[in-house]
């Protein structure tokens, strides 16, 4: 992988919070990169650190009190430890974010137009005429009917799906290099979810931007992602292309996740499931963090943490069951 192709390069990122009962290692040494024009999906259950990861990239984690270490290389610059006023040129301009709950992402006291105008004013133009034209064009782009009317309306006058599309328009208006989408469809209904995903796919092709897409739903991953990183308890445990993840999942946790989909064939039988619960972030087990729930547990799993081993060009996994370069054993 050549350096120019990487839009963002995260190396050994750690985000710790100090809690009442010890250090909370929300993100514990993860490395990944994002290529130009691809959709990278971070998958994991709640509490695995996927939201903290992207919030750290966006510079939304205040440090101190939190401790952030490692490197986030964007455009040859390290974003870790960057001053807030330097961050202003990047956040919302070069890297923008779509949040989970569209209903609570807007300020109820300002109109849609005013809120988008804030971004346009900071990053593009302070000419009001020009910015209004730009905003209405952006709203049209995400299929909002009657954008001129919507411009002067308040968030409560719109439905969740419409607000999410406005949020997407807001994220795209500065033509960013990277869009971070933090569970953008979780709060929406299935029919609206399908619309939003379709829109995101189209716009991504049109703008050729790179997306980090966070979700817990592997079904959505199969629809939108190019590459998938599976997270568990603050670590990335498996990295692969989307086809590889669905065809040959290697880590027992990934296999468990894929199996716990409710399929039609299971009717009348028990569903397969993963034993136990996700560990709390202040009491992660020693060794591999998945070991208390793992059906293939060995002695080494409880004592030593597995390193990332490359199975093939587009697939790597952190598990003691696999050795570098081979693709064998259980399935």
């Amino acid at each position: 992988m050549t350096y120019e192709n990487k839009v963002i390069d995260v190396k050994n990122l750690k985000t710790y919070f100090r809690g009442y009962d010890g250090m909370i290692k929300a993100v514990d040494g993860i490395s990944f990169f994002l290529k130009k024009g691809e959709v990278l999906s971070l998958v994991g259950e709640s509490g695995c650190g996927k939201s903290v990861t992207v919030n750290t990239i966006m510079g939304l984690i205040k440090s101190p009190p939190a401790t952030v270490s490692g490197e986030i290389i964007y455009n040859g610059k390290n974003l870790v430890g960057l001053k807030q006023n330097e961050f202003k040129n990047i956040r919302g301009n070069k890297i923008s974010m779509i949040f989970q709950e569209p209903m609570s992402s807007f300020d109820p006291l300002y109109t849609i137009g005013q809120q988008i105008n804030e971004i346009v004013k900071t990053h593009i133009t302070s000419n009001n005429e020009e910015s209004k034209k730009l905003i209405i064009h952006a709203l049209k782009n995400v299929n909002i009917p009657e954008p001129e009317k919507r411009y002067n309306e308040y968030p409560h006058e719109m439905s969740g799906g419409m607000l999410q599309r406005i949020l997407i328009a807001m994220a795209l208006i500065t033509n960013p290099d990277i869009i971070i989408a933090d569970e953008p469809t979780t709060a929406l209904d299935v029919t609206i979810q399908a619309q939003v995903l379709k829109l995101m796919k189209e716009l991504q092709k049109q703008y050729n931007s790179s997306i980090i897409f966070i979700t817990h739903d592997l079904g959505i991953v199969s629809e939108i992602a190019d590459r998938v990183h599976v997270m568990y308890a603050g670590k990335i445990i498996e990295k692969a292309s989307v086809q590889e993840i669905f065809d040959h999942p290697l880590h027992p946790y990934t296999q468990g996740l894929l199996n716990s989909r409710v399929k039609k064939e299971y009717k009348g039988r028990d569903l397969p499931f993963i034993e136990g619960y996700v560990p709390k972030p202040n009491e992660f087990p020693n060794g591999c963090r998945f070991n208390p729930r793992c059906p293939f547990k060995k002695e080494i799993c409880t004592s030593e943490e597995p390193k990332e081993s490359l199975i093939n060009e587009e697939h790597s996994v952190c598990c003691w069951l696999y050795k570098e370069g081979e693709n064998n054993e259980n399935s």
Partner: protein
Amino acid sequence: MKILEAISLKKYFPIRSGVFLQVCGNVKALEKADIKIEQGQTIGVVGESGCGKSTLGKLLLKLYDPTDGKIIYTDKENNSYDITSRISKTVASKFRRDVQMIFQNPFDSLDPRMNIYDIIKEPIAANGMYKNKREMNNYIASLLTGVGLYPEYASRYPHEFSGGQRQRIAIARAMAVMPRLIVCDEPTSALDVSVQSQIINLLKHIQQENRMSLIFISHNLDVVHHMSDRIIVMYLGNIVESCASEELFNNPLHPYTKTLMSCIPAWNPKEKKLGKTITEGEPPSPINPPNGCPFHPRCQLKMIECEKVKPLPHECGDGHSVACHLYKK
């Protein structure tokens, strides 16, 4: 044996405004629903948010009073009562014991100031099931083991448990009075995927052991299909289709059901199917539902008739009923 039967059940929530709080409109949450629940049967209710599925569940539990229609409750001795109007204390206590509920969010449905023992004890004590304290303790311990928790957990408080464990406690609480019907209002939607299957398996096991009936409300078609014998599809307060769950998946009739099915992600990166199906628009507001068929503004197979006449549910053989003009003879 029947447990509950609802006959053209209707619920409007009045909107009041002005100084004198005059009624200026209605949220039409549920329109003329007919449901019959037999012993041991599971009925699934699917639909998007705001379609009235939770309202239906709460009406059946008599947490809301219906605007119109009847709910007939049949007790163990096969006596039937109409419970829509005021009911006598004896009937009420029987009904409350027979019908229980599991709520969506286990983080809200358990009192944070009560320990697990007290939470489970409350319905048992209210129904006067055990006078002897030791018997009660043993019963609560057996309930906890029944839902896969250790009896020692009884002295802990809800905040010490994860979401999946809390939902298990909620199930134990609902099971405590040995009900004949449990209404589950999205019991797994607040849980992680790996824990969801555990809870579904547990519900299924408990149901089979006790020959209980379930009303399973969810927006997830796959989960509803797995749980239920019969499925009811709702849209904007109307039941648009109802039939056996196999039949619904093999032969969906209503255009809305077909839309719902096509919106389930494929789980296969080779056949990305979401881009192919187009569902324009969003559900209209239940305050001002469209004339005629409620789905017609989004329906691709719209006819002139759909805008004027509201289709009524009618049988198309095999207990498959659908409310759509397309299937009228």
